[in-house]
């Protein structure tokens, strides 16, 4: 059995290790390692399209994860204050946001937004008689909103779980000692849920940064890193992509380790 487990771990990590190894290859080929070089990292980072896609992805992931952390945490706090029926409806919607396949989230958002723009844009144009009227279009906004939907549901669930295990005695003690609700929230509740909020933010960031399929539908003219990488892969496997893949893998591993570490923080003082 141990041999089998070792084989499975090798199976999990060998392909990744190969990509990392060949990102440092001096030559162009995947079958032979002809020497150590970081030239592909230089090539990747001096490719303007790639850098643009990377910047877009960082902006979108940061914004959607921030929004998701804020709204998701607020929702989890709000859900602790409502009746069982409202809660059940909300939980079902949050569950749906997580379970509905990405392709379906992508196309339904695309379809709904295009319809909406079809109504709103002529209306805006009628308000701007002379100048160029503002035009709503797919882009940053739609990607952020579509990513945020899944992430917000994820944050609401993680923070909700944490709230469920919150020590109620502390909250009661705090109000017995005449703390205002706001003070109680700031000094008792918030510190206890903060690790869950941060973990939620980091996971939301990772998800948004990695997502291909949802962005593929709602990106409009924008390019994110996964969309760029996908397009390049279809043109052929190159060492430059190995370098990007390595950077992304290392970054996601760091983020996930950070998120896990945050989740395991018991008392953050």
């Amino acid at each position, binding site marked *: 059995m141990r041999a089998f487990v070792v084989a499975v771990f090798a199976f*999990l990590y060998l392909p990744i290790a190969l*990509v990392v190894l060949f990102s440092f290859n001096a030559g162009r080929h995947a*079958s032979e390692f002809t020497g150590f070089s970081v030239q592909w990292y230089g090539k990747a980072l001096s490719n303007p399209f790639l850098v643009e896609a990377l910047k877009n992805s960082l902006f979108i992931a940061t914004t959607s994860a921030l929004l998701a952390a804020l709204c998701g945490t607020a929702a989890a706090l709000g859900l602790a204050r409502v009746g069982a029926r409202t809660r059940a409806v909300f939980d079902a919607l949050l569950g749906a946001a997580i379970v509905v396949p990405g392709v*379906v*989230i992508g196309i339904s958002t695309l379809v709904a937004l295009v319809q909406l723009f079809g109504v709103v844009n002529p209306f805006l144009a009628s308000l701007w008689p002379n100048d160029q009227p503002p035009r709503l279009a797919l882009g940053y906004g739609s990607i952020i909103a579509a990513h945020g939907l899944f992430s917000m549901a994820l944050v609401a669930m993680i923070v909700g779980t944490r709230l469920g295990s919150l020590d109620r005695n502390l909250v009661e003690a705090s109000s017995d000692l005449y703390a205002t609700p706001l003070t109680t929230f700031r000094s008792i509740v918030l510190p206890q849920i903060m690790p869950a909020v941060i973990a939620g933010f980091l996971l939301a960031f990772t998800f948004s940064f990695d997502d291909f399929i949802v962005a593929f539908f709602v990106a409009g003219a924008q390019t994110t890193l996964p969309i760029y990488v996908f397009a390049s892969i279809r043109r052929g496997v190159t060492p430059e992509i190995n370098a990007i893949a390595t950077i992304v893998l290392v970054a996601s591993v760091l983020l996930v380790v950070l998120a896990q570490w945050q*989740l395991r923080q018991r008392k953050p003082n």
Partner: protein
Amino acid sequence: MRSNILRHNFLTALLLGPATAWLVVFLVLPFVAIAVFSVGERAPEGGYQAAFTFAQYANLPARATAFWNTMVLAPAGALACLLVAYPVAYYLALRAPERWRLILLALVVIPFWTSLLMRTYAWMYVLGGRGIPALLTYVGFEDIRLINTPGAVLLGIVYGYLPLMILPIYVSLERLDRRLLEASADLGATPISTFLGVTLRLSLPGVMTGFSLVMILLLGEYLIPTLLGGGKVFFIGNALVDLFLQSRNWPFGSAIAITLVLVSVVVLLAASRISTRLSGARRVDLI
């Protein structure tokens, strides 16, 4: 008193407001939109034209291959995942040395939270012409094609979703009351019948959770069949991308999307029914 209740309600509304707006505008309304689109017609230049017809649904057999591939490879992939995952979860939960357990578990989880695109790309690299086939040719085999086959897609599926299968099984095995195993042995059961009657049986809820999670995600999969199936092994997800982004047949695409969601719901309901029957569903934390 009255103002207290008002304030309580106002704060609750304030807290839930943004999330509600988000869920309604970007989940409920879009879903209603594709439901409406699915009974519409394709406009002559592409897109949607209002109508009320079930012609799109009647036309579903036109994409039978995509449905067939998905309906065969998704369960097959989930099953293959399960067969690989179970021994690993078993080892981690019941056999691994205590101090190694968390490290090994983290090693299982980390790939799941890293980019599926990059991990699938890694296999394009390994299975592609310059990877294993080049190695095999070097050893003496000729004309080996690994990539762009159903086998490659299946391999990609197992690779991509293995962590998601290991985790819930690990959780249910880890919670297993070890005294039951001793009791079973004390009562003269062989290791095999202890495994079948106690261990396996008590881990079935975890198995169901993992299986249904992987199945649901596979039903909407796009990247793995595209990158490792090379346009030959296409899934429903590929049909959807084609219909919405290339041929711009939105009503037909919507009908397929609605069907996909319905199939997912059926799978989830069946899984939760089976789990409940097996011994009460347990919540599993995925992170």
